[in-house]
């Protein structure tokens, strides 16, 4: 569990979490939570992580203090001020059913638990790429960046040797969805990073 839902609508939700450790949460990661409807699992991609101000203005003061002490900064950081993490809904799965890569029938309710998806889940979810359209439609996010980041992670989750083929497949799906818009495809493809050896 990495956090709980603070607010939600059909397309997206925000959850609160503590200051990030190393790679959780990161931009483009696939996370999951549950919804009431037939106990389905809801999947989403992290598209924004916001650092909040505290209510008493301490952070603001420390940020300009000329002689701020390390202990004060560490103490301030250790207070329970959650990060707001925004997630784009990209699919859901009813218990025992197939994964639908479309908006869920309901949003998650407040304080639903959020978990990170492990590699095998990430691979399974990205076996089909129908959710690309949802991402491309989310114009209020940096959707091209988001796609590139999520494809990079899904490629990295795969075995060495299979990654390139996966990326090519993603590129082709994009080309189809973008009606061959060569400039945009190239821009996205350039942002995808993976390492075939590791």
């Amino acid at each position, binding site marked *: 569990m990495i956090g709980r839902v603070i607010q939600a609508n059909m397309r997206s939700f925000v959850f609160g979490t503590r200051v990030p450790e190393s790679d959780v949460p990161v931009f483009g990661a696939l996370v999951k939570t549950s919804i009431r409807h037939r106990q389905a699992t809801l999947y989403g991609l992290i598209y924004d992580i916001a650092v909040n101000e505290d209510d008493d203005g301490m952070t603001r003061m420390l940020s300009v203090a000329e002689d701020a002490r390390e202990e004060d900064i560490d103490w301030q950081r250790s207070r329970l001020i959650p990060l707001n993490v925004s997630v784009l809904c990209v699919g859901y799965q009813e218990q025992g059913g197939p994964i639908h890569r479309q908006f869920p029938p309901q949003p998650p309710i407040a304080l639903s638990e959020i978990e990170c998806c492990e590699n095998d889940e990430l691979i399974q979810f990205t076996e089909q790429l129908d959710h690309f359209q949802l991402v491309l439609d989310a114009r209020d996010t940096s959707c091209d960046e988001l796609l590139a980041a999520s494809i990079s992670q899904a490629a990295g989750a795969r075995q060495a040797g299979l990654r390139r083929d996966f*990326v*090519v497949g993603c*590129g082709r799906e994009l*080309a189809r969805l973008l009606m*061959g818009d*060569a*400039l945009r495809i*190239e821009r996205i493809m350039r942002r995808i990073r993976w390492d075939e050896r590791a």
Partner: protein
Amino acid sequence: MTNRMDDTDTIRVLDDILSDRNPLAPPGQARASAQPVRRRLGVVVGGSLNDGLDVKLDRDTYTEGLAVGSYVTIDGQTDRKFFGLITDIRLDAIDPNAQKMPPPAGNDLLAQVYRGTTVFGALQVKPMLMLDRDTGDPRPVKTVPAHFTPVYSATPEEVEAIFAADNAGKAYEIGQSVDDDSIKIKIDLERFVERSSAIFGRSGTGKTFLALPLLAGVIRNEVASTLIFDMHNDYGYTLKGDKGKQLKGLKQLAAIAPRIVIATLDEESSRRRNSRPDFALRIGYEQIEPEDIETLQKTLSLSDVQVNALFALHREYKKEWLHVLAGESQDSRLDEVLERSKILDGTFSAMQRKIKKLLGLKFLQPYAADDFVGRILDHLTRGDSVVIEFGGTDSLEAYVFVSNYITRRIHDRYVRLKELAEGGSGTMPRQLVIAVEEAHKFLDPEVAQHTIFGTIARELRKYNVTLLIIDQRPSQIDSEVMSQIGTRITCALSDERDIAAVFTGVSGAQQLRSVLASLDSKQQALIMGHAVPMPVVVRTREYGQAVYQEYASSALSPDDRHARNAKLLGRDEEDALVR
């Protein structure tokens, strides 16, 4: 799209990569396509019946493995199968930016992504015919298949079934498909001779090498007798190949040799070449009529007045007219005759000069020992074929004169035979094919009006006589004659006017032009028209040992030979019954 491939996909991709059609297949591992599978090429995405169909290629179809001029099949939605000819192969793009800004060098990934999505291969396919749903018979296309109908490469079986499938007995294998040697292309000989046909192509493209075995096929299958005007001495005994190579002429093909008669216009040359002519063709002055010379009006540059004078002389002197004109026999009445016929002295002597030039031809003699042309006609009506060798006689006058002279008499004889047959006395004349090399010399629009060949091309089909025109300049052939040609076999052509001439009156010519343009400079031809169900590009059969072999032994059974000999000896049916 999914990046998951099930097993069959994987196998298909592997097969494609290792296919011998893939020019990039790792050497040594390429698999010969074991049995001809129908390879899916792509889907129909647009087009029209007139302009042809647009086919978007599947991503894994290699454009390099395709060729203009090969066939595709399209399974219609209602069990009808369409046959189409690839007339163009194109690289297309959804977004022109991808073409203007190609992926940077070394970015294989992007190229791989673009291929088949943003950019793709496309075919232009001309629908050629449709197989009837119930009988499987070929029918002309009158519609097009629906959007997204899959397109396959045609298999050898499919192609072979179309060409001359229903006339197996009289089918002639003219060559192989250009993109698959195992596909034999056959033409229907009966249809080929039923209407006039033509073999066109630049000099050296293989017209003679194509015509000779084709005529041999016509003779052997007894679909027609042939009369060949052999200007370059190729058809009779030896055919001259490159580098002094000598190949067999018709007379050396054992199976048909007894039915070949060679007549020469130049005995000395024939002897030197050892071409064993059956007889030397001579024409006596008394056998020549003014009409025979009229056909040379343009070649000899005779004026209309002079031509009229020829007829006047003939009226006056009958059979002796040429002797008088040539000054062979002196006639005291000449001055009087000239005056009566209003022929000026100057006209007469100018005419005399021109005619004497013609009469200088060796085979024209004041008196001939025999009616040689009558003999030729007898051979033809009996079913033999005659090659007229010109030997060293290479003047245009000789060529035009002799061929018109003989052909006029054929015309008369066949018209008469046909009329007799229709009146109930006698049988229909046998089909006759008259093959003429350098045909434009007789059939150019000005000459065609006067020569007999124009008439034959236009009307002699009714009398079972057709032409086989072999020529390098189709644009110089009278357009009315061109429009009568049923089957056109066209080797490579380069002159725009010639190309245009070949396609006059052909539907969808624009697309076929690109097919013609793709022909090799030798031994490849586009065949279209009456003798083939749809246009086809062939690599013509190699003329040589393999063909000799087929003609090695006489195909005649002893009985047949007996009957033939009886016929040759002039015995009629009753004699034969007595044997």
